């Protein structure tokens, strides 16, 4: 009976001020979508780092006038280095082949470069890709070495971009969350005001505090849960239309976002949305109803 009363009060409460309820749900939904997206980006960046760093190479380019002696010296030092798991030698011809493959769409560039203009190099796989700096310091001063280039430096720039995107989503999530919380607090105040007579009578005749507060708090929780369902819908739409749709050409570049991961964000969004709304409502009531 009491549960039925509380639930019907929740529905009446949400309906009484329906424009405010919609505003509250939309801001909650956007905020939770941003939160979910930022969580997904975070896990994806971690996945992609692993994926990319496994295949990453450090290239040691040799001087054009490198001597045979220097070359073998470098080769033996590289072979003996415990930080390096694999060494591949690329001579001028192979470098030229790779160059031709890479720039086959720009014939002007191809015709301008001769085979012996490209430097020989050693391509290294590191045991731990993050130790690039040590390798670079060790070999850049060795005779015959022109420069040490690390692909991970380029990748880091890309990952910085992702991290920036994640941070932007997070900041947007927090900003929207603040707006959502203010709306929740306001909605609860309006609801408490419109029910002030009932609340006064309930306090007078000794209704328990939880019973007085429950409809208001649940009203906020229901709004939070609806918001998180909409947030899940938005993430599904993002996956279908953006990742699997418009960005599908870049599939090799990004680690794929699985359905499992999308749905796993839902309990997080629902939990955060429900809990934060409940706490906001409860705190608002403590100030407003003094129960």
């Amino acid at each position, binding site marked *: 009976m009491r549960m039925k009363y509380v639930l019907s009060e929740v529905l009446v409460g949400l309906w009484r001020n329906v424009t405010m309820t919609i505003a509250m749900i939309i801001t909650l939904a956007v905020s939770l979508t941003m939160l979910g997206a930022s969580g997904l980006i975070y896990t994806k960046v971690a996945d992609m780092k692993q994926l990319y760093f496994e295949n990453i190479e450090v290239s040691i380019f040799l001087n054009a006038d490198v001597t045979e002696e220097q070359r073998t010296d470098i080769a033996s030092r590289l072979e003996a280095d415990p930080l390096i798991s694999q060494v591949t030698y690329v001579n001028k011809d192979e470098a030229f082949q790779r160059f031709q493959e890479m720039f086959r769409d720009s014939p002007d560039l191809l015709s301008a470069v001769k085979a012996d203009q490209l430097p020989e190099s050693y391509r290294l796989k590191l045991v731990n890709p993050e130790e690039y700096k040590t390798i670079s310091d060790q070999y850049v001063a060795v005779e015959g070495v022109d420069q040490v280039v690390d692909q991970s430096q380029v990748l880091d720039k890309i990952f910085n971009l992702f991290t920036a995107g994640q941070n932007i989503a997070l900041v947007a999530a927090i900003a929207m969350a603040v707006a959502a919380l203010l709306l929740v607090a306001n909605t609860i105040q309006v609801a408490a005001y419109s029910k002030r*007579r009932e609340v006064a009578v309930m306090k007078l*005749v*000794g209704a328990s505090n939880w019973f007085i507060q429950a409809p208001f708090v649940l009203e906020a929780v229901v709004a939070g849960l609806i918001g998180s369902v909409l947030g899940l819908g938005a993430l599904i739409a993002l996956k279908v239309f953006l990742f699997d749709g418009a960005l599908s050409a870049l599939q090799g570049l990004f680690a794929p976002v699985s359905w499992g991961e999308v749905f796993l964000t839902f309990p997080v969004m629902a939990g955060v949305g429900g809990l934060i709304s409940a706490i906001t409502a409860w705190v608002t009531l403590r100030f407003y109803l003094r129960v």
Partner: protein
Amino acid sequence: MIQLEQVTKTYPKASRPSLDNVSVSIDKGEFVFFIGPSGSGKSTIIKMLLHEVIPNKGRVVVNGKDVTSMRSWKRPHFRRSIGCVFQDFRLLPNRTAYENVAFALEVIGKTKAVARRVVPEVLELVGLGGKEHRYPHELSGGEQQRVAVARAFVNRPLILLADEPTGNLDPDTSIEIMRLLDRINRTGTTVVMVTHDSNIVNQMRRRVIEIESGRIVRDQARGVYG
């Protein structure tokens, strides 16, 4: 049933105490009037008995419970043993007489079945038989106050507090309400009533406690307004 022991209450920013070293003892089943001019501290006593105001000094004991040291989370349960009636009735305008009384039962966890059994009975007792389904705006002031009394009494409280219950009613209606309170008192319920109405006090001939500037100036067993 009710004890005030050397109770002093000074509201923040007030220059003098609302109640100044007041001691009163009220037995079970008594009918007591608190009288005195506005601002004399009568309503503060009612608020203290409801645990709405805590005294600065002294002790308030209601129903054997020390209200002074009561934690606020115990207040709801404590209030279930006290009925309350006010000058402005405090009914819910969008509920019928029946629903107003039933509401008070349901929000403290009584089932609808209990309400169906008890509410018509108490409405009959206050003389509203047949008007259960009227809304407050369809009832006269006296009838509205009867609904309020029914709501206060439906839970069979040990104490009924009435804060100027006749303040908004004409003399004849006031007397009817007083008859009702008297009938409730005869069931063994302690009634504490704050009033300005000299007519009523003089007719009832019950215990009268007069307060002036926060002090008791008279406590008379079968008193008049004075």
